[in-house]
């Protein structure tokens, strides 16, 4: 029993990282209805940019962090202008494939500039583990958890109460109506991509602190799908909770599979089986907006 409790705590902790990545995903979907298969690669690019600034140019970490955020804004603008804008109005499959293409391009660019070697990240957080419920937890994960909570709070407030946030939600709901109310949707799209890139960079820095960076940490982007589907594709709260829940469920299923069924390595696939089950029962997730179709 204590084992399962520890699994849950560890799941919450690792789920914090999923939440961070899921947040960026949901921000893009919320504003533009684009499913971004390149979310993992955006995290990777953020991590590499911070690495380059800290290690290669020897800038103190705090400044490097903020400059990375600045670069992320530029990256978001570039992506939106060059890749996504020509595809406004195209069908789903085209948009999905363009993000897939983008993920390949980003991966290759990172390999071109920084090579394929594993890079070690500068450690900015203390490495002494903090003990929670009998389980030692590295401070990096606590930081991820705290950051997701903070970012989630900031963006919830932003989307609910600020003009721009409401404009973004309006654009997602009905582009034509938003345009006729005078909202510049091109700016909205650009802003949502910038915000998502910034959030991903934060995630990337955290991820880099955990185990160094290489050009393949982008696979985390795939892990995000169960989290966002569980939470609802356009719900921020859903993304935050979905990440945590998926982290916990993954661990619990893995532990149960090993003890009861003798299956190894189940955690990789557990999240996706949960995904299929959720899709069958509640396709719009826990907090997503239900699309009601009128014939």
């Amino acid at each position, binding site marked *: 029993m204590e084992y399962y409790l520890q699994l849950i705590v560890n799941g919450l902790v690792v789920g914090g990282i999923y939440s961070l990545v899921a947040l960026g995903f949901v921000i893009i979907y919320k504003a533009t209805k684009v*499913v971004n298969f390149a979310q993992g690669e955006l995290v990777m690019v953020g991590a590499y940019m911070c690495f380059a600034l800290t290690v290669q140019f020897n800038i103190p970490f705090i400044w490097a962090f903020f400059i990375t955020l600045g670069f992320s804004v530029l990256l978001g603008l570039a992506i939106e202008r060059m*890749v996504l804008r*020509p*595809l406004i109005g*195209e069908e*789903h*499959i*085209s948009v*999905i*494939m*363009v993000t*897939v*293409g*983008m*993920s*390949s*391009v980003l*991966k*290759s*660019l990172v*390999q*071109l500039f920084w090579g*394929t070697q594993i890079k070690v990240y500068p450690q900015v957080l203390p490495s002494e583990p903090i003990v929670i419920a009998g389980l030692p937890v590295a401070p990096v994960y606590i930081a991820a958890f705290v950051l997701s909570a903070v970012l989630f709070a900031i963006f919830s407030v932003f989307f609910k109460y600020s003009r721009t946030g409401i404009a973004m939600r309006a654009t997602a709901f009905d582009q034509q109506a938003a345009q006729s109310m005078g909202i510049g949707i091109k700016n909205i799209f650009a802003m949502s991509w910038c915000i998502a890139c910034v959030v991903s960079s934060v995630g990337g820095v955290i991820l880099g602190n955990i185990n160094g960076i290489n050009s393949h940490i982008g696979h985390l982007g*795939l892990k995000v*799908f*169960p989290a966002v*589907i569980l939470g609802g*594709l356009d719900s921020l709260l859903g993304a935050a909770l979905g990440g945590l829940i998926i982290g916990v469920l993954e661990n619990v299923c893995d532990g149960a599979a090993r003890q009861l069924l003798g*299956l*190894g*390595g*189940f955690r*990789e*696939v557990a999240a*996706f*089986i949960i*995904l*299929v089950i959720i*899709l*069958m029962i509640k*396709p719009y997730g826990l907090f997503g907006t239900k699309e009601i*179709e009128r*014939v």
Partner: protein
Amino acid sequence: MQGKCGLFFTSYCGEARIFQSGFQKLMVVLLIAALCVAPLVLDVFTTSVMNLIFISVIGAVSLNLLTGVCGQISLGHGAFIGVGAYAAGQCSLHGVPFPLAILTGGLITAMVGMVFGVPSLRLKGIYLAIATLAAQLVLEYVFLHGGVLTGGSNGLLLDPPQMFGFSFDTEGRMYYLLFAFTAASLLMVSNIMRSKYGRAFVSIRDFYLSAEIVGVNLFWYKLIAFGVSSFLAGVAGGLWGHYTGYISAEQFNIGLSISYLAMIIIGGLGSVIGSVFGAIFIVLLPEVLNIVANGVGAYFPDIAQHIVALREGVFGLVLILFLIFEPEGLANRWRLAKAYWKLYPFAH
């Protein structure tokens, strides 16, 4: 049905023919003749590339039937090809004759495909894509943990196909076998597209609500789409397994699914000839890149290495460029080129 100026049909049969004019028929005959002569004049390596193209065409056309014609986005195609490869491989290893093994592999894959098509009843668009992504990952896990059925982590070693005591163990012989299968699958898909089923698929893609009102049973036809598409994917997988001689779980990963999706998008969604163009393009892309790298490598030795490492980036870039500038794919380009030639000097 896009009729040509000057062709007058006096029966429905004539109108529904796949090759409608005498000129088209002649061209097809010449093409077949050229393809038959090809392995005798080309070297072994080029023949092997053509073999890869044939297998990819079968896979691409099956995915196009599901995604391009019926509108169901599927990210699990690589896994279905894997199911076909393992099923046909196991049949072969148990002594089943080769043609029967391929067919059995296809049928098993069709059933698996239909099982994973069940979510399509409730899911559309993005959600279906993500469900098929889950299918891909779950099937990969099954391949790795299939124990005796899939050889688990060691994979399966297969013998080259044998029919009537005749062994297809050289590139040239496999070429003719694969050519036959490819021609058969292309004909099959073309026929489906001009039948009642094809029209139902198109109606589901275009606007499923109207299709439902008109009386098309959505769930049944979607299942059929998944089934037929998976059958052909299974056939492609079985052929791939016997051609390569070795199958393992790593070969049927998400990268394979994405490359097939790229094939149909670059080629053109919803058209048979688009699938062919797309398959040729994607299979030849690494070869062209190698040639470019070798050519450049003569002048700048170091850059050659980088160019090849950028293979994935070039693939992504090509995909993005096609989606931005030519969203309807190579089939559209082909159609426009033909129209230009036929209508010159008129614009339309």
